[in-house]
């Protein structure tokens, strides 16, 4: 029987089942065993697995990343969490100089099987240091794997794969996906790292996106379909190693590419996807690839500014329309209504965190 659960529950279930099958898995992070349990993703684990494996930690992101690495080298499989992605920046030395390189620089003698869960904040004034999307930074580092699940199904399957993988995996969650629901099998299963997925088939244009931007792209594709433009939406799922083949296959089919990347513009991941299409499927392209990103700016806190900062469905629609030399439409014309303020994803999101 098919069962729908939330993205949060999917992460929780993947963690619990992975810990049950492998005694070397443990999870640590500030607040992991606290009453809120990392937005619910760790609730109940302490009771099931005890506080040795469900660990709070000192506010020492750098050393604790090193501790995770060291323990992984001697046989443990740590999951390290940060309630906001921005906090990982304190530990980049350990991630980039050590975790990412350890296997290669010591000739394959050791491996560092760690998962670092990062949550990208958005809305309710998260502001400059609580809402950064730095996937391209991590994807640039050889030795790291970077996943950005969109569906609850992938949230569970990719987390199980990340935990079982023998390499450091950066697992990026978007806060606005936490409450979405989807079909998730009860038993443990994996979704392979390094494989994109066509979430909506289409013939006219490929919209490649990741994480929360897949949801926005799906909505845009629905509106576009009403005007006779059938977009194929490709959920990248893993940014490193990137499934270039799926990008090329889709672009060869549609002849057009729009990349929607929830991150700043310059040197962002969208450029990598566009470059892949240009290098490998140039002859199939009917128009130059385009991208929708955040502007090259820190995220402002005021809703008045943040509302302009984040691209929306209408921006995706109009970017696609311009690629077909069609005039832009307005939200009013398309009947796109906002019954909630733009700084929250849905009614369930009440802030402040």
């Amino acid at each position, binding site marked *: 029987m098919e069962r729908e659960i939330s993205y949060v529950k999917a992460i929780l279930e993947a963690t619990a089942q992975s810990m049950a099958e492998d005694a*070397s898995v*443990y999870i640590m992070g500030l607040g992991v065993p606290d009453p809120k349990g990392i937005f619910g993703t760790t609730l109940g684990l302490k009771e099931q697995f005890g506080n*040795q494996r469900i660990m709070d*930690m*000192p506010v*020492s992101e*750098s*050393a*604790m*990343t*090193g*501790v*995770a*690495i*060291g*323990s*992984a*080298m*001697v*046989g*443990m499989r740590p999951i390290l969490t940060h309630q906001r992605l921005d906090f990982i920046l304190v530990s980049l*030395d*350990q991630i980039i*100089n*050590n975790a990412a390189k*350890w*296997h*290669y*620089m*010591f*000739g*394959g*003698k*050791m*491996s*560092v*099987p760690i998962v670092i869960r990062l949550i990208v904040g958005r809305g309710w004034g998260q502001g400059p240091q609580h809402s950064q999307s730095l996937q391209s930074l991590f994807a640039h580092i*050889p*030795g790291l*794997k970077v996943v950005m699940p969109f569906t609850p199904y992938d949230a569970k399957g990719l987390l199980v794969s990340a935990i079982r993988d*023998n*390499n450091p995996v950066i697992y990026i969650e978007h806060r606005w996906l936490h409450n979405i629901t989807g079909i998730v099998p009860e038993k443990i299963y994996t979704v392979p790292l390094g494989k994109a997925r066509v979430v909506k088939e289409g013939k006219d244009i490929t919209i490649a996106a990741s994480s929360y931007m897949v949801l926005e792209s799906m909505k845009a594709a629905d509106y576009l379909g009403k005007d006779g433009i059938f977009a194929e939406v490709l959920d990248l799922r893993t940014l490193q190693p990137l499934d270039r083949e799926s990008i090329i296959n889709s672009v060869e089919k549609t002849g057009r590419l729009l990349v929607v990347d929830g991150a700043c513009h310059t040197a962002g991941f969208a450029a990598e996807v566009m470059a892949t299409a240009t290098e490998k499927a140039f002859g199939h392209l009917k128009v130059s690839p385009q991208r929708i990103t955040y502007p090259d700016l820190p995220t402002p806190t005021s809703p008045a500014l943040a509302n302009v900062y984040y691209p929306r469905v209408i921006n995706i629609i109009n970017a696609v329309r311009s690629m077909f030399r069609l005039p832009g439409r307005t939200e009013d014309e398309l009947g796109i209504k906002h019954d909630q303020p733009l700084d929250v994803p849905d009614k369930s999101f009440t802030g402040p965190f």
Partner: protein
Amino acid sequence: MGKCNNVMNPDLKKKLLFNMLRIRLVEEAIAERYSEKKMRCPVHLCIGQEAIAIGVCAHLSTKDYVMSAHRSHGHYLAKGGDLKAMLAEIYGKVTGCSLGRGGSMHLVDLDAGFLGATPIVGGTIPIAVGAAFGSQMKGESRISVVFMGEAATEEGVFSESINFASLKKLPVIFVCENNLYSVYSPLSVRQSAERNNSAIVKGYGIYTDKGDGNDVIEIYQKMENAVGHARQGLGPAYLEFDTYRWREHCGPNYDNNIGYRSEEEYLDWRKRCPITCFEEILKQEKVLSDLEVKETVKKITAEIEGAFNFAVSSPFPPEKDLYHHLYAY
């Protein structure tokens, strides 16, 4: 160096001396051949600092873990790291301990319990703590030792690491070699004269001790206490030893002429050579003869010669190796 314990087994004393001598001769051989330009990676020689590696590692078994930083040849050898694999690594050969990917700054020998050395200051400190944490979680009785320079105590990750080690009472020993300089920057421009690292670490609830880093017996005895503490499950220990780097920060030469330290200071420390001073004591105690020293030097020299031959004659990694081992499978 008047603290030499006469009760100590003379064979042990000689072993400590000869192990120091072996490191010295390896480092001198590297220095001598470095100008051939076949060792194409930075080398940070530990000549003058051999006693700490030997006094500390004498208390460890192969199942104990050791990690280190950029000046790690002595630590690697003292822990039982394979000499041939080390030299081959410095020569960039496929027979090197890291298949030629790491060089002098990335030594490893898992069979000897040497988990790795890296040159970002303080970088391996939390990893060694993590190795100890992993051992503790798995219920294994082994200790982890991390060698570090005094500059690493200036890194934030050091404070973070000792806090966690103390919190979890981890079986980890931090061995700080204070050689007074970080590259060319003296202690005086980096730490206040009032700063007391031992007192700082002690403030975290950690067992601390300090001593003469050129006196192998003193180091041996202080490490014995620290190891006992850690093995009993009483938590981490921090040992600080004063010592001196004889040669330039990086490379085979002496650099007292460039102006960051005085020839006089260097000569003062040379008088306190950990090897010749200890050798004199053992001779005075009549437990060591000139002949034994001569024979040992001959034996070690032959071993080093063989290891260099191995390194020089080993093949470079094939080009296809470039893409190997990015990810573990």
